[in-house]
């Protein structure tokens, strides 16, 4: 028995002394996985890249791609997602993450291509993301058949989004400008009530002061107040046009941010990565 242990230990210690324990390939992988799970992605990538090709698997390629995605290197991330074997169980997840990258880049043409190219895989997440982005950014509305990939709660959100995009609460800058002929009315139209009232009061007060001063033969003050009133009047028209534009911008920003918030909450319809449990 002792002899067996003896002969086992000698080669083991010999091989051990030949390698630095901390930098042996299997330990590099272990440590890289640890860094990955600690969300120290940049260092994890460095460690994965130190591994010999014999150690590289689809899981490692996916982890490198995912790490690049986390540090905002989307092109490099895509490159790694693309190298994953078509038959790998991680391929559909990689395609979904690539779609997410393309969504973040707002490259919807490539997103469409990515979905079409991989239609044989289970990429429901990518398809949902594509349909949502078409509605949000390109005002293209899906058919009922296309909507069937969404579950009930998501469909509710999509329907609401479609209504908001099809029938936007829009204010016309031209109408606002014309209404402003009566000071403040344009701003009431754009629901900027306090500004509307201020416009009416200031223009009214300065016009009245100008009129009164001309009546009392104070020519200089008459001109001063009348010009000020004119300035406020023109400002009121310009301000109403701007107010209508801002109203529309705010409306779309609210729609975009609500949609993005929903997508974020849903992790962009992409399955969560579970390597660190």
């Amino acid at each position, binding site marked *: 028995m002792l002899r067996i242990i*003896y002969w086992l230990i000698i080669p083991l210690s010999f091989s*051990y002394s030949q390698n*630095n324990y*901390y930098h042996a390939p299997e330990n590099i992988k272990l440590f890289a996985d640890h*860094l990955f799970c600690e969300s120290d992605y940049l*260092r994890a990538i460095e460690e994965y890249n130190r591994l010999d090709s014999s150690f590289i698997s689809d899981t490692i390629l996916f982890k490198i791609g995912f790490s690049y995605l986390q540090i905002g290197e989307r092109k490099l991330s895509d490159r790694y997602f693309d190298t994953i074997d078509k038959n790998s169980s991680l391929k559909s997840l990689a395609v979904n993450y690539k779609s997410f990258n393309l969504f973040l880049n707002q490259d919807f043409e490539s997103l469409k291509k990515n979905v079409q190219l991989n239609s044989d895989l289970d990429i429901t997440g990518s398809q949902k993301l594509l349909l949502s982005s078409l509605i949000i950014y390109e005002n293209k509305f899906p058919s009922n058949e296309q909507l069937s990939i969404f579950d009930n709660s998501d469909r509710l959100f999509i329907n609401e989004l479609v209504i908001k995009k099809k029938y936007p609460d829009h204010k016309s800058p031209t109408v606002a400008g014309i209404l402003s002929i009566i000071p403040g009315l344009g701003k009431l139209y754009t629901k900027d009530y306090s500004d509307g009232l201020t416009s009416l009061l200031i223009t009214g007060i300065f016009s009245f002061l100008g009129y009164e001063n001309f009546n009392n033969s104070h020519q200089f003050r008459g001109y001063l107040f009348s010009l000020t009133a004119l300035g406020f009047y023109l400002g009121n028209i310009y301000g109403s046009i701007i107010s209508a534009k801002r109203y529309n911008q705010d409306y779309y920003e609210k729609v975009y941010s609500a949609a993005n918030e929903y997508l974020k909450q849903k992790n962009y319809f992409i399955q969560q990565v579970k390597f660190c449990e």
Partner: protein
Amino acid sequence: MNKFLFLLLIIFYNFIYSQSDLIKQSEYADSLFHSQDYFDAIKEYKRLIFFDKENSLQFYSYNQIAKCYKYGGKFEDSYNYFSLALIAAKSYREIFDSKINICRLNILEKKTKNAHRILDDLENDSSFSEFFDEIKYWRGWTFYFEMEYQKAYEVFNELNKEELAKITKKVLDKTYSVQKSKILSMFLPGAGQFYTGNYLNGLGSFVWNLLSGYLTINAFANERLFDGIIISNFLWLRFYKGNIENAEKFAIQKNQEIFNQSLKLIYSNVNEEIP
């Protein structure tokens, strides 16, 4: 018997070898740290922690990682790792060092209230009574970063830190009083700016105030009440208020410059620990 002895020798050799590997790894991380390659140094210290199953170098590694982050300007991460070092600390000295390191970060970030709170806690804890002078020393630095130079000077002087006390005294003498600068400008527009050495700005301020003041008084003297109110409101008061604000701004700016220069001097000439 001989075989048995030989086997023991090999086992012992393996144990020694694993220890020497640990030391080698630690030395490698240290060499990266000393060559200021903080990114890689952090990685190697993390590796050390990950493989050091007996946690013999855990405190040291966390501390070093925190220092790397600190020197790289990543204070938030540095706080986190000094806190981890505090958890891993095994002696009073290590606990004290971790707390002082956190305090030093607070001083550096001018979060002096936090720094004082940490020092108060250490001062009130009898376990750290032997480190009283060190606590006092960092208190001095907290005062220094608060620009309370008189208090800082007193502390450094008491601790016989002669070089530091000398520089602090010099800074104290050079520093401008913000209050004084504002009050001077209240009584004579531009005087506060002159006090802080901004002569052109002071002269400009004086001239604008003189001119707008003259226009205002002239309007009132000629019973042009409306003109007087408009000129005083929109012209004179604006210049007057701006003059006081400017005087305050210049004094603060100058004091900051003096503070920065003094720190440079301390960093290059004084052989003491700094925050």
